């Protein structure tokens, strides 16, 4: 495993144009994994704790932002206008 890194390190010295490649591919892979982790842990469609919170999709607050990014919606300003269960 470490011999693989040593081999790549040797090639980087003679081919420095590989460095941007590592940056972009590594960055892309990292961002994808981070987003997948966020989906696994914070998406209300996913249920991990079957005893305490078996159905998170039923416990979403009216002003809870469950999406990663909003353009026009300010979730803190939303009102609750539906009945409780």
């Amino acid at each position, binding site marked *: 495993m470490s011999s693989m890194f040593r081999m790549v390190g040797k090639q980087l010295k003679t081919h420095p144009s590989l460095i941007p*490649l590592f940056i972009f591919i590594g960055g892309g892979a990292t961002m994808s994994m981070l987003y997948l982790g966020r989906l696994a842990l914070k998406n209300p469609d996913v249920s991990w704790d079957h005893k305490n919170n078996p159905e998170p999709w039923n416990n979403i607050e009216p002003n809870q932002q469950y*999406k990663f990014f909003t*353009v026009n919606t300010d979730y803190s300003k939303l009102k609750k206008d539906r009945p409780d269960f």
Partner: protein
Amino acid sequence: MAYPLQLGLQDATSPLMEELIQFHDHTLMIALLLSTMVFYTILTTVTTKLTNKNMLDSQGIETIWTIAPALILILIAMPSLRVLYMMDEVNNPHLTVKTIGHQWYWSYEYTDYKNLEFDSYMIPTQDLIPGQFRLLETDHRMVVPTDSPVRMLITADDVIHSWAVPTLGEKMDAIPGRLNQTTFVVSHPGVFYGQCSEICGANHSFMPISVEAIPLIHFEDWSTSMLAKI
């Protein structure tokens, strides 16, 4: 609406579609520029008199053609994700319309205040009056008020259909047993057409959608007259 030999997207009738058209133009321009550059490069490579029998490499050009495409992709991804998240926002609808796809017609239900339900069949070609559009006109149009966010709840009764109106930037599958939601705002009055967009049997091409947008003050007149008629 669509016209013969059309190449591009239909003009936008909703703010979302305007965003989609802008994103499409941005991305298509990048694609055309890149294609032109590649075509020119191939042309010069194929017609050159220069020859070299050794292996060639260059760190400089490799760095450039790693960084430049990555930057271009980021420039495409940022507006793309912005429009994608914008399409998912539910912007406090004033009205909810339910539409159910059947073989081979759409039915619409306006149940916010009174129970207005009606079916929308295509007008057969032999029954068209001059000026009407073949395979697009329906006997009852789905009427919505302009400048009002409308929520569509879409499902189907038998097989999968798809409710699509290109000028509004709308397409949502109608799946039996599932309720799909989409929202739109119609910017100006008019009649806007679409066609079923999921193969659903013999008359899949003959179950169009027509949406008529009228100012809000006239909308109640329409719904009252429809309730009296149905």
